[in-house]
């Protein structure tokens, strides 16, 4: 067998043009593997996480408050062990046996840094440490001496001069030589390729030209070096009918690798509803789709687990024939009743117990979904590491998971058979080709080496351990790259200026390669680089001929596409089905504000997913506050009381918080929670007190109503049922019905303005719906603004009375007129996007509110801020 051995060849292909028998190219790792096979030294790999855990035990046994690593170890034992183990492995790879030389007697030697003595102590410490690649080399060196087993290696061809290998590898080469292996050096190409540097602004631009270049020839003698992900390039290649390169980036963020970490974030109380939503929507979620949907719906209603909505969802799951009570119980335990205490740490076994259903489900899924086998294996490993631990903090748990679920190389679409030779770095090029293309040049690196403290380098040298210096290895990498470049006649380097919106730094290899290119004397490096560079935008001529390093393509002009903003008024033809089946206040408000928004929401049923609509901020606080008042009223009403005690208020808040605002229970939310609680406590108390002071007896919360609204539209009369619930309904001294609507918003400005302008439609609608007549009474109404702890009302019952410019009856008339007008339009098939329509009004004419006023209609401002259709109506469109 003939082996080519080089420092950078571990990922190199064996051969391109003429693959053969018993000819391989190997780097360090593969050479060791091969020798292990020959010497009968193979064994299973121990995953690094396990070795870290073993080394951690060793460090524990040598830890003391005075230990150099003590502080780091105390804050992060796992990472400290990982770091020190890496140092240990690096020293051992270079032949260290764990012993330090005696200190030199002379004063010059101020000894090693504290690192080496620590490593030495850990080497002597109790406890096992599974061997790794680092230990293998030493073992092989010994075995080569001791074992008579023939190696079956005829020749070892060194890709670069023997002297350029680090010391311990030179020992290995010598050992092989003495075992009869013929050692030679690979021939080095004598020439340098013709170099072209293609400069593009973004990866997309670079991909366009690169794919085109590849598609322009048959590539039977082309090497393609991919030093970075090719997923963008692959899109272009596919579009040109070319095979994909399929190089993926290393990423810790692949969906399936989020399963384990996400799950373990969710086992602690209180549950983080946002993460829960992410867990339920993950493609490989172990929660059955249908069940997940029920739970998500519950979260959208009440952002917490364990409340009414949650229990309803659980019951729904239990009652579903496909799902059933067992699943319902499991999910309820997992995310509601069985959560582990948030503070402090728990033992490994409790974690195992909490994860049991998860592990079982993932295992079962893995049987049918091979992709999940890796996940199952990782989960097993995590659980195995956890099991013996007496106490695990949330932090430790995360670290252990991070150590096991390591970044994987991803590519949505794998590489395809292609005529070219695919490499990861130019140093892997081992035979002559016509063209070499280097994609991802700026990201190209050869593995970094550990930087050792100069004192430690010296100390180890005295122990016979010679660490390769970073300088030597950099020189080696550059020289090898340059040498391998000589295998190509032409080299095309692709550079991009920015990635992810940030400028990318250059790769110094560029200067290294350019320096070896012929150049007129006196040209500076900057000029010489420029001489070799072509900007991507210069490749296409006026006539659409594209040229790059001898490859030519005739291009066609892209189709000019000029987007037009959608017409603000859509004429879709008369359509009686657009009559509302029912109306609620918010439907009516939407309809009057913007009929397009109303049709899309209530007729076309366009929806965004529940997972994207979990309430937070004011929406969450509003419904929470609301519920608190409702619950308190229930208690008071039963006992015929009017004002709750401070304690009752506090209890209600505390009891409802986990269901309606569980977000506030998360770490980091305590201050906000206190603020909300205290605001809410006073606000709720003020609410009841003021009602009492104002002589209003609260009778019902969430009073349901249903009343038909008579409207003439499209030439006919319609009776449309209006239904809903009025927040707080009571009765005043004079026996009049009072209605209060409860709001939580940052400012009270708009609500006050509504009252002053007599345009509080919601309140008028409640009075109308709860009353008998065709028009709402002017019985007392108010908004109650929780955050400001104040009422806004035109009636004196609620504190200061705001002056009002329009009576409710007048408002109602205008509202009906407005509704009839809008429905006329809609039924005639004229659906209007209100804001764009308003923006299109001529600047010198009447604006929309003025037009409405003139026609005696109520003007309702379109609620664009909270509308999901801004892109669809063109308001947020880009028509440039």
């Amino acid at each position, binding site marked *: *067998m003939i082996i080519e051995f080089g420092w950078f060849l571990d990922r190199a*292909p*064996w051969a391109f043009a003429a*693959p053969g*028998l018993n000819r391989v190219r190997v780097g360090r790792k593969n050479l060791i593997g091969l020798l292990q096979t*020959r010497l*009968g030294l*193979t064994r*299973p790999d121990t995953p690094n996480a396990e070795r870290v855990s073993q080394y951690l035990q060793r460090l524990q046994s040598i830890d003391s408050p005075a230990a150099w690593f003590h502080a780091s170890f105390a*804050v992060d034992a796992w990472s400290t062990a990982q*770091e020190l183990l890496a140092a240990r492995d690096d020293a051992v790879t270079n032949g260290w046996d764990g012993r330090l030389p005696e200190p030199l007697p002379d004063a010059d030697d*101020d000894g090693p840094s504290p690192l080496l003595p620590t490593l030495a102590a850990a080497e002597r410490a109790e406890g096992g440490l599974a061997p790794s690649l680092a230990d293998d080399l030493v073992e092989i060196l010994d075995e080569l001496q001791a*074992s*008579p*087993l023939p190696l079956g290696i005829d020749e070892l061809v060194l890709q670069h001069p023997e002297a350029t290998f680090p010391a311990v590898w030179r020992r290995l080469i010598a050992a092989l030589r003495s075992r009869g292996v013929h050692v030679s050096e690979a021939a080095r*190409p004598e020439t340098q390729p013709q170099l072209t540097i293609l400069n593009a602004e973004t990866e*997309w631009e670079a991909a366009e030209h690169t794919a085109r270049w590849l598609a322009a020839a048959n590539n039977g003698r082309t090497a393609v070096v991919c030093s970075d992900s090719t997923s963008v390039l692959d899109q272009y290649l596919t*579009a*040109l009918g070319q095979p994909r390169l399929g190089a993926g980036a290393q*990423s810790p*963020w692949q*969906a399936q690798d989020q399963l384990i970490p996400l799950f373990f974030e969710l086992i602690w109380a209180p549950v983080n509803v946002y*993460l829960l939503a*992410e867990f339920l929507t993950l493609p490989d979620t172990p929660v059955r789709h249908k069940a997940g949907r029920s739970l998500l719906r519950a979260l959208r209603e009440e952002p917490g687990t364990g409340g009414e909505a949650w229990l309803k969802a659980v019951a729904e799951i239990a009652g579903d024939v496909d799902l059933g009570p067992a699943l319902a119980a499991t999910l309820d335990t997992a995310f509601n009743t069985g959560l582990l205490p948030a503070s402090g740490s728990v033992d490994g076994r409790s974690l195992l117990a909490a994860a049991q259903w998860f592990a079982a489900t993932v295992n079962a899924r893995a049987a049918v979904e091979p*992709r999940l086998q890796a996940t199952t294996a990782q989960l097993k490993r995590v659980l195995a590491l956890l099991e013996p631990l007496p106490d695990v903090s949330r*932090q430790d748990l995360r670290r252990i998971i991070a150590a096991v679920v390591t970044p994987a190389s991803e590519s949505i679409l794998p590489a395809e*058979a292609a*005529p070219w030779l695919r490499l990861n770095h130019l140093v892997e090029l081992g035979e002559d080709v016509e063209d070499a293309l280097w994609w991802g040049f700026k990201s190209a690196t050869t593995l970094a080496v550990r*930087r050792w*403290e*100069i004192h430690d380098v010296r100390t180890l040298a005295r122990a016979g351990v010679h660490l390769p210096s970073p300088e030597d290895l*950099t*020189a080696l990498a550059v020289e090898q790259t340059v040498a391998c470049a000589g295998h190509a006649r032409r080299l095309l380097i692709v550079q991009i200026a920015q990635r992810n919106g940030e400028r990318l*730094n*250059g790769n*110094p*290899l560029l*200067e290294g390669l350019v*320096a*070896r*290119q012929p150049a007129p004397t006196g040209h500076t490096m900057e000029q010489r680089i420029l001489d070799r560079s072509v900007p991507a935008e210069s490749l296409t001529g006026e006539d659409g001929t594209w040229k790059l390093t001898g490859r030519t393509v005739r291009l066609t002009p892209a189709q*000019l596409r*000029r987007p037009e903003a959608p017409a603000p008024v859509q004429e879709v033809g008369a*359509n009686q089905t657009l009559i509302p089946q029912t109306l609620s206040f918010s439907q009516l408000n939407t309809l009057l504000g913007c009929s397009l928004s109303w049709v899309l929401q209530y*007729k*076309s049923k*366009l929806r*965004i997913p529940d997972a994207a609509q979990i309430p937070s901020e004011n929406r969450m606080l509003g419904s929470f506050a609301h519920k608190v008042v409702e619950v308190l009223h229930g208690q008071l009403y039963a006992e015929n009381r009017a004002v709750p005690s401070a304690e009752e208020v506090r209890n209600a808040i505390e009891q409802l918080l986990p269901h309606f605002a569980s977000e506030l229970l998360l770490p*980091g939310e*305590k*201050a906000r929670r*206190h*603020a909300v609680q205290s605001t809410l406590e006073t606000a709720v108390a*003020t609410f009841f007190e003021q009602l009492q002071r104002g002589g209003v007896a609260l009778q019902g919360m969430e009073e349901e109503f249903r009343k038909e609204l008579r409207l003439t539209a499209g030439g006919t009369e319609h009776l449309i049922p209006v239904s809903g619930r009025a927040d707080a309904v009571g009765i005043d001294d004079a026996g009049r019905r009072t209605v209060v609507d409860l709001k939580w918003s940052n400012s009270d400005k708009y609500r006050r303005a509504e009252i002053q302008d007599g345009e509080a439609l919601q309140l008028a609608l409640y009075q109308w719906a709860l009353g008998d007549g065709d028009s709402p009474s002017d019985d007392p109404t108010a908004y109650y603004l929780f955050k400001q702890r*104040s009422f806004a009302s035109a009636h004196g019952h609620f504190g200061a009375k705001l002056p009002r410019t329009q009576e409710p009856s007048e408002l109602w008339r205008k509202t009906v007129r407005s509704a009839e007008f809008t429905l006329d339009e809609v039924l005639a098939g004229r*659906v209007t996007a209100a804001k764009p329509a308003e923006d299109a009004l001529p600047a010198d004419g009447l604006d929309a509110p003025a037009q409405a006023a003139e026609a005696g209609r109520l003007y309702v401002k379109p609620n664009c801020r909270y509308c999901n259709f801004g*892109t669809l109506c063109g308001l947020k*469109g*880009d028509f*440039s």
Partner: protein
Amino acid sequence: MSLLDNVTMVSASAGTGKTYTLTTKIVEQIEAGIPAASIMATTFTKKAAGELRERIAGRLLDRASELGRGSGTGSGAGGGMSALDLAAQELGSSLIGTVNSVCGQLLQEYAIDAGLSPALEVIGEEQLSSIFRLATDEVLAAHAPEILPVAHRLGFDGTGARDAASWEDTVRAVVDAARTNLLTAADLPACADRSWTGLRELLDTPRTDRRPEWLTQLRAAETELEQVMASGLMPNGKKANVTSAGFLEQHPKLLAKLASIRDVGDVPWEVWRGFCLSSPAGPLKPIFLGLRQDIHAELLANPALHEDLEGYIRRVFVCAAECLEAYQEFKDAHGLMDFVDQEARVLQLAHGNEAFRRAFAGRIRFLVVDEFQDTSPLQLALFLELSSLAEQAVWVGDPKQAIYGFRGADPELMEAVVRQVPRREQLSYTWRSQQHVIDLSKTVFEQVFAEHGMSPESVHLELPPGHSGSAFGHLEAWTRPQTNDSERLRATAAGVASLLARHSNLRPCDVAVLARSNADVLTISAALDGLGLRASRSARTLGSAREVQLARAAMAYVADAYDTVALAELVAIHPGHPDHGTWQQELLATPEPDAVLASWKTAPVLAALDALRADASSASPTAVFEAVVGALGLPELIAGWSTPETRLRNLDALRGSIDQYYERCLALRSPATLRGFLDFFAGEEQQSAENSGPDVVNVLTYHKAKGLEWKAVVLEALDKDLRFSSFGPAVVQDVALNLAQPLAGRWVRFWPSPFPYGGSPLDERAKTSSVAQAAEARERRNMARLMYVGMSRAKEITVLTGKNSTPALLNNLGVPDLMSWRGETENDPADAGTGANGVILVGGDIRLAARVETLEPAEAVPPLRTWTPRYIDPSQPPAKVRKAARFKASSLDSAGIEAQVRAVAELGPRLAQHGSDDWGAVGSAVHAYLGTEFRSLDETARIRSAERIVQRWGVSQTVDPDLLLTAGERFEAYLDAEFPGWKRHREAAIGWRPEGQTMEGWIDLLLEGPEGYVLVDHKTYPGSDPEGHIRTKYLGQMKAYANAIEAATGKPVQRVLIHLPALGKVYEVAGLR
């Protein structure tokens, strides 16, 4: 030796080739033999660091080839690299970067020395607030009950003025100020004392708390007002004017304020100060004005106000001190670190950690600090410390360009340090600008900076000898008299258009307009847009760019097929969707929306997205994004859209925003998912990528203009007021600089003001305080530097702008009557051809010829509706389905392969009766043994080898080493008999490339005979149907191997044998087809 003996300060005025000097100094050091790894250089931005590294590398290689020590020109490789060559390559791993990246790298390497977690995660700028909140939550929660009532009265609880800092914000600001000035928790109580002592001087001696009386009077007034409202008559019987606009506006506001008063102790001070305006309308005036005036007179003597102010100051500092500690503990426990920590920790190491000091001194010999003028106090201390460890240090900067005071840099401190550097170089030759442009900045700033105590030499600029050239450049002054700010900016835009029209050699990209605020940048950009000139700053947010909307909708649709809004958006925006132009008709008219939506999904572009959904389960959000861009065919669409370059950069920026999301997840240690990203992005307001290209006018802030240059520069905002305040947290240093402890004597002053709208007696007092005067002086100096930066950016044309011909800000820099301009009818013949029609007067007597004009906003022109689309590849037939690039023989399918499988030899009895859980490992052990040339071992060695293998594979519970030995012996015996003299290749490597695919593999045993090969594979199958097992599992593999061998050697594979060691049998696979 003085601390600064090894330091050289290079003062480089604007345009004097600072980077060149810096590069030269580093290159000289390396030439003198200092290894590249011993250089440390910090720069202000990542970009600058990258450029510096590239320049040094270039210059090193130039030097190498000059000296003939290069890597040859065109000669082959090999022969080793010169030291300079190598150094150029080494730069990548040396400590060149921003202060933070360098500190980060040092801490990563010395984490354990520093007692930190080695898995440090740096908290990005965007995550700082959420991490701070998380860390200090408990502290804030604990202080809230005490502090909230006071904060409420002072308006800092979130219910006060809209932009009033909340008490939490203030605590955070104090913590930040403390940290960047190396103050510890223990230092803060003293800061509280000093703050209160200072503030108290502005107040009156406390007397009695008259708030209850105030309230009584206020309520009485309220009643009076109610009566007036009810009767429509004033108390004096006159008709009340309750219909004036002023009254209608003020009345409800006053009522709202009065309504908010419940408990007298709870009333915000701002309500007492401002329950009504200073000029109340209609009936409000007689009722309320007197009371207002009385309260104002008594306000500063109110003991409760004293108590609130003092209490608030003290509580803020106490809380800040605890937060400081809690934040630190939190980060330590979670392995987190922010930018300030990075610097502080390195400083700590450099100051007190012997191991680090030894290591650093042994490693870094030449230390360079670029943009020294913008260092923060903490960085300053750090550089002093590190410089003292290095052999030599060079600080490069220009005190005149220190403009980052608002970020915590302290130019005064920096100047004090610089003054003590003994060795100094001053660069005064400018390569940037032409004569007239230089004249302007020189004449203006020699005077202005003289006020700062700077010598004319340090401001002086001149052209290098022999560089005077024939072009002199010219000056312009534009007066825009409009009263409305945005009108004025529109006039400037019109000026830019006419400037471009006048100078045919000036392309839009040669012009820059500098403004003070981002809002102004946006207004100017929009105005330029209106004139058909594209500005670098796009007014669009990233999320509203068409390509981004499409990509986002596609990601949302991939995340959830039920997202019908996303579905509709895709149809509405994607011109390739068949229903693109008609979707509204279809959707709005139908009684069956579900059917319409379903039909939309059948279009190819949506089918492609549906197909992606399956792959998304193993993809990151980034990968999904990249895939949807392809599936949507976005690049091709973009090629036909306007500004394709900007749009491609937008895609890149969107991918950058996914990265930001990851960063947040990392900091919060939470997982990242597609759903999570979509939520994150929905809450983001990111700017669209900048426009670029020759037809784009640069519009940016003065701060961003630092270090850049253009042919023509228009300076906006020359009329702005100095903005300064005595209130809020500020860092003060009132002792002279001590180099050994550069930050000693610094403290945080915090004066709260409960009156966010001014107009209080407190504001009156504060105005005359020494604190306000110092703040004003500091701000004036800041502005002088900022203006200097602006005025030194132009190469050929500097344009000044003003509301009138004496721009207020320029005349408020400390030199009275510094500058004005005027048109002149008589033109100096020497200025003919420059377009000069007037002069700029500097300091009253210096006259600089200039073009002077008065501008009006111009009519907008209709936006460009057509453009030349880019060229694209001719369309291709759909890609064919291809095979995978690589395959493993062992994973090939056996289905469809024909062969005869039969037993050909019985080697002996079964060695295993059945399999086990770890049978895979048993197989590996058997392979391991059979893979060696065990026959060359003597018996003891063989046994030892087998034992070792069994033990290494951890299967000693399952099998006995004997199994291996026996299997080996009897199989070898079989081979001896069957294939005598054949060469045995164990673990033979075979490579193969059929039709572009690649296979690389190891054949267990390959026998080489005279005519061809025999292929042998060991299978440790323990079961009872070997034939079936072979047939279903191994035919593909064997066939591939056989083909590969034949391809590689040209010789036939004569037989294919399967050795079943556990069963003691050999099977043959024949007739493989």
